[in-house]
């Protein structure tokens, strides 16, 4: 038998341990005293405090997805940098009234087939080139190319001619009147034509915006510095902006709570409760309605081809519980797609369907069904799975058994575009936040000509085309068209809207002046840190 030798070596003695610890502490102290702190480097507020706008400081924005150059000309998961590097022609106010940006003024022709734009003459691109009408011509033609995958391509394609009147006046000629041209202007970033091909590979991003691209590090994010020659005098206040990619929600929240980043729009709804109790952070809701949660129905699957069955599903869902439990209460339970800022919004449409399982069962019985079973496709992400499970529970209560089909985003996207969805699916949609006609001409689930639900009706096509091409309608006429679209959407229920979501901003208490446009492009022209 072996045993440890009684007078075995004792390892480091107490004296040597203390000596080593002391030396180590000294070295560490010397080392760290001489070097910068990563924490204080990251939270580089300008010195001093006060409510007045202050120049200086670098703002770090935590984003959950990296910039995707290939999607520069379309709305993607991450469009925060668009309005930082580039400008748009106009921007909407809260009542969807266009306000000047690179375009100073505009006039429609009487027949609605032409729009004359007057452009700013004091704007230069980051490379020093002057901004002219040619850049607007390029921007529109660029979005007409299918390869750019711009969601507002159909509106851009309605522009069939350009008439330049000098360098800063331009007439856009339309194939037919369209009433969502200012949606296009809100969406369309003005890029330098010469570097357009380099822009879609991420090599160069040259615009006229308040910030200049310093560096894009794929996977890490974008680093921007102030444009010293910005056309708005004295703006921006910030020295720079860092868009830092933090895909994991917990890490993103830690980054905000530790002051490492000062702004994010990607905190999941269920985590906002903890954020609200942190006095260093504030939470702001934007009623942009840039996203909505819906239950999609494949109208070619029996018995979902029967409208009564679709109505039963719409009555069966508890939207308020879904909102409270899975989205942290941030959003608006609604049977219609419109946010409150939309001209199509009415309280009656929002509450057209409420939670009434008894009525749902009755409708199913009247259609000859007591038990039904369907697959339900959803994204295999934690938040989306919770929404699907909530729907599964509600539908089960009325006798509709649902089998969940968790699917990765790329596959779901392919099925959405190729009309390959199963009987039911739940996803999000956008485009209800601007002119109502845009939803039906630009959002695939609602497209009158071809949509995922495979729903078609002449009445829907007629009203959508009329709403899109009615240029000079009075408010009453426009409202009548919106009313007809909403009525068809609610009555046909091929897309059953559940919750309208705005953007939820979490920001450091010292950050002021942040805004978003209707397509969630971040605007920091007037932002400052105190």
């Amino acid at each position, binding site marked *: 038998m072996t045993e*440890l*030798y009684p*007078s*075995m*070596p*004792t*390892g*480091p003695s107490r004296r040597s341990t203390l000596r080593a610890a002391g030396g180590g502490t000294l070295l560490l102290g010397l080392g760290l005293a*001489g070097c*910068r*702190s*990563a*924490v204080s*480097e990251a939270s580089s507020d300008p010195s001093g405090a006060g409510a007045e706008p202050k120049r200086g400081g670098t703002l770090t924005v935590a984003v959950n997805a990296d910039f*995707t*150059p*290939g*999607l520069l000309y*379309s*709305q993607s998961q991450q469009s925060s940098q668009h309005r930082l590097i580039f400008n748009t022609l106009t921007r909407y106010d809260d009542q969807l009234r266009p306000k000047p940006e690179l375009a100073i003024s505009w006039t429609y022709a009487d027949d609605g087939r032409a729009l004359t734009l007057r452009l700013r003459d004091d704007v230069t691109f980051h490379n020093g080139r002057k901004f002219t009408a040619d850049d607007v011509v390029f921007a529109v033609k660029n979005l007409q*190319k*299918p*390869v750019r*995958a711009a*969601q507002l*391509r159909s509106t851009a394609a309605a522009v069939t001619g350009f008439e330049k009147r000098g360098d800063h006046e331009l007439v856009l000629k339309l194939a037919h009147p369209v009433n969502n041209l200012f949606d296009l202007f809100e969406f369309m970033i003005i890029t330098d034509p010469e570097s357009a091909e380099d822009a879609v*590979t*991420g090599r160069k991003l040259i615009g006229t915006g308040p910030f200049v691209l310093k560096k*894009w*590090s*794929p*996977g*890490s994010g974008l680093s921007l510095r102030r444009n010293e020659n910005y056309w708005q005098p004295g703006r921006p206040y910030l020295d720079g902006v860092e868009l*830092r*990619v*933090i*895909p*994991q929600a*917990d*890490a993103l929240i*830690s*980054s905000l*709570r*530790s002051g*490492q980043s000062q702004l994010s729009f990607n905190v999941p709804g269920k985590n906002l409760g903890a954020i609200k109790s942190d006095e260093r952070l504030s939470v702001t809701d934007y009623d942009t309605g840039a996203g909505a949660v819906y239950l999609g129905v494949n109208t070619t699957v029996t018995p979902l081809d029967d409208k009564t069955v679709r109505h039963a599903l719409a009555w069966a869902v508890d939207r308020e519980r879904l909102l409270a439990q899975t989205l942290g209460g941030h959003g608006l339970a609604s049977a219609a797609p419109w946010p409150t800022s939309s001209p199509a919004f009415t309280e009656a449409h929002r509450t057209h369907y409420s939670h009434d399982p008894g009525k749902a069962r009755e409708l199913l019985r009247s259609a000859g069904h007591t038990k039904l079973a369907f697959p339900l496709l959803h994204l295999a992400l934690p938040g989306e799975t919770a929404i699907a499970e909530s729907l599964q529970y509600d539908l089960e209560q009325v006798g509709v058994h649902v089998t969940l089909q968790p699917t*990765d*985003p*790329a*596959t779901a*996207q*392919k099925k*959405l*575009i*190729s009309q390959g969805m199963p009987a039911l699916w739940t*996803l999000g*949609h*956008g485009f209800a936040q601007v002119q109502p006609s845009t939803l039906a001409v630009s*959002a*695939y689930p609602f497209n009158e000509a*071809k949509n995922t639900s495979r729903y078609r009706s002449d009445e829907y096509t007629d009203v959508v085309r009329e709403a899109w091409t009615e240029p000079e309608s009075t408010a009453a006429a426009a409202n009548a068209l919106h009313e007809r679209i909403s009525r068809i959407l609610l009555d046909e229920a091929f897309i059953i809207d559940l919750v309208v979501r705005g953007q939820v901003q979490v920001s450091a208490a010292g950050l002021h002046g942040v805004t978003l446009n209707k397509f969630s492009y971040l605007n920091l022209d007037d932002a400052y840190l105190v």
Partner: protein
Amino acid sequence: MRGYLLRRLPSAVLVLLVASFLIFTILRLVPGDPATTLAGPDADAATVAAIRDRLGLDAPLLTQYVHWIGSLVTGDLGPSYAIGGQTADLIRDGLGATLELTLAALLFVILLGAAFGVLGATSRSRWIRSAVRVTTTASLAVPPFISGVLFVLLFAVVLGVLPPGGRVAFLTAPDLAVQYLLMPALCLALPSAAVLGRYLKDGIENALAEEYIRTATAAGVAPRRLLWRHAVPNALPPVVTLLGMQTGHLLGGAVLVEAIFAWPGLGRLAEQGLVSRDYPVVQDLLLLLVAVFVLVQLVTDLVYAWLDPRIRWE
């Protein structure tokens, strides 16, 4: 040796070829494609077709495969479909970040493992030995994704002394880089350090129980000299082998830790590439991993052959 190497090379090339074909085929079998991802949720068929055409996805699969292998041979990996930039640049940047994290973790594994082993085996204090035992057990039991969150909460949110995530490249600003590295590297290293510490502790204890130590002690050799000159060197060989194995674990574990600490390494790149069906990035990345394993195997075989000449003639 040269002959042995020449005999082994064809099989290594064959493995890479078969792997490349499997990677290419399996990736194409996964539903969803880059064109629909790039086209966005509101695209129409014309948009998808235009993008498919631009990316060359209309060509027959065999043509696409040959084109890919050709690009690999010429060293031009081409552009990424969805992430943007050149695939080679993306992989190079990610590889740098992952290697940096793995090397820092390896340093922690060696330092902590040595401390656990030596203190656990030689300390006369029952408290210290118990503390080492509890620490190693906890390090082994708590997975990095838990310890990572706890570290962030303590050091970044409560104490505010370390950044919760992100990276500054070591060569750009070493003083900042070290602070960004500390938590992820420690988190990644703890389980491996615990394993290493336990092996070392057993090794030292066994060595100290050997007869020659007893003799040396009787001859008046100082205990410190006995420990560092005799016991530790004798306990090291199996520990070095284990360290090699743990390095593989570290590389694998880095993927998870990268997500927690927003570390832009290969794990993050692979996830990003898969989600957007960015074929060039995922293909090249997977083949690179296979190549690394093939290379390690080849080097191991060569070292064995060098150590044991009989193997060369088998």
